[in-house]
């Protein structure tokens, strides 16, 4: 692996390191992890204060709900349930009713997944809005940098040929078989990665911010068009919840892919920027 050796002397296969992620991408990625973790867990605390979702401008106890996490008093023990669009399923132990100090207690999300663990809307809101600000500032830093540096255009925007059904179909098959790009192809994101990251960066995350802001009576007075776009404060609240669920799903798949396609190599590339690629050589 002598750097000065001529091409003839390089022994293949060999491992080369490339610079995968810029310092801004790495920094904002981890700050984003921190922010989204706090936002999700404090968000569930806030949800617990009124565990029902509605469509439209208004919605409260008497109005038809799209989603309810609740508890029925059947006999001496309360039974937790989730009801979505009229379909009800029992969820005792996790949703609706879960243990607090060993006692089955009525609460939508259980104490091990909310910040704070005990029921306290005021404290949950403090955590949520603090990290909401940090998240927005961090997001703007990332977007500004990515636009100016060309990261979005160069690394994330898919090329036309990558969007052909045949190409995409092949990539879906490869992913399903856990065959990940190697060598030269591993230098860049594949098109499924590009499309997913773009969806998260320009659709899901901005949607979280905008639906969050739409729930604010102060922002609604200043920017009335927000409520118009989403069709009501309660619709915005419901979309906020659904989009957050989408982000959780993304994180689950993302982390699984990180683990399956080379855990330490991937994590290292997001910490130090260095990413190892195995080169099979010109004749391979």
């Amino acid at each position: 692996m002598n750097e000065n050796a001529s091409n003839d002397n390089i022994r293949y296969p060999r491992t080369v390191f490339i610079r995968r992620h810029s310092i801004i991408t790495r920094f904002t990625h981890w700050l984003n992890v921190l922010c989204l973790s706090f936002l999700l867990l404090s968000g569930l605390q806030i949800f617990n204060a009124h565990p029902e979702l509605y469509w439209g401008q208004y919605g409260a106890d008497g109005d038809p709900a799209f989603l309810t996490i609740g508890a029925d008093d059947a006999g001496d023990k309360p039974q937790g349930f989730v009801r979505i669009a009229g379909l009800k399923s029992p969820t005792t132990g996790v949703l609706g009713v879960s243990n607090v100090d060993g006692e089955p207690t009525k609460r939508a999300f259980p104490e091990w997944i909310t910040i704070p663990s005990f029921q306290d809307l005021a404290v949950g809101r403090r955590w949520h809005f603090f990290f909401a600000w940090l998240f927005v500032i961090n997001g703007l830093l990332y977007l500004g940098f990515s636009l100016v540096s060309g990261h979005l255009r160069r690394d994330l925007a898919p090329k036309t040929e990558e969007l052909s059904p045949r190409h995409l179909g092949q990539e879906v098959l490869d992913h399903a078989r856990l065959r990940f790009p190697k060598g030269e192809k591993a230098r860049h994101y594949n098109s499924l990665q590009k499309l997913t990251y773009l969806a998260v960066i320009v659709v899901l995350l901005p949607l979280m911010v905008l639906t969050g802001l739409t729930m604010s009576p102060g922002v609604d007075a200043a920017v009335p068009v927000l409520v118009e776009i989403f069709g009501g404060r309660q619709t915005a609240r419901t979309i906020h919840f659904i989009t957050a669920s989408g982000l959780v799903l993304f994180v689950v798949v993302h982390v699984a892919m990180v683990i399956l396609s080379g855990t330490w190599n991937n994590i290292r590339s997001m910490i130090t920027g260095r990413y190892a690629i195995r080169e099979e050589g010109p004749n391979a």
Partner: protein
Amino acid sequence: MSTFLTRRRFLIGSTLGASALMLSGCDILGQNTDVEEVLHSAEQLTMKAQRALQGRGALAREFDEKDISPSFRVNGTSAPDSDEYAQLLENKFETWRLKVDGLVERPRDFSLADLKNLPARTQITRHDCVEGWSAIGKWTGVPLANLLQVVGLKPTARYVVLHCADELEQTLDGSGRYYESIDLIDAMHPQTILAYGMNDKDLSVGHGAPLRLRVERQLGYKQAKYIMRIELVDSFAGLWGGNGGFWEDRGYEWYAGI
């Protein structure tokens, strides 16, 4: 394969362990006063940003009759539990007087008839509870700005404090008494009214009879019910918990624009 399994077990184990640590850590951190202060700083940022976006005049959206919620949830106190209030209710608030004092030029009392003789405003607006639900209702009342004009503000007046008849928490020292405060920007806003009517009827007991505040660019807990006295102050630091309201003294934001 075996290293992979250990690695996976390690990853799962450490993630679960870390999140449990993080969660209980947050409970402790959230109660630490320094951390509390840092988290609290977001409120100032929110208020400044919203006020800058709004300017003074931006109006909350007003709806049509057909948008009114079929049922409007009664929240907080559903009926103040005191002999004084029971008596007022019995005589249909004939003897109720709104006392306006503090840093005003001409302190005085207003009867319900006095208030109804002042120019009124009617608005159909959305009420947003801090818990997350919303209800739309039609409110009729006196713009607070008009009332403040009648009594005249002293130059040092900065906040309007609303003292209420309801005790949301029964305490010996009276600190469970509901109160709220807003600054003069919100007090002078055209949609800030002292409402005596709701959905074309007199305000019901559940919704704050005889008089409640509507400050439409903020959340529900700012909309004080059962108002007995309006006091103009230069600071609310000396009142009860010192945070400017019943819920504010229990950890909620004074600026409830989000």
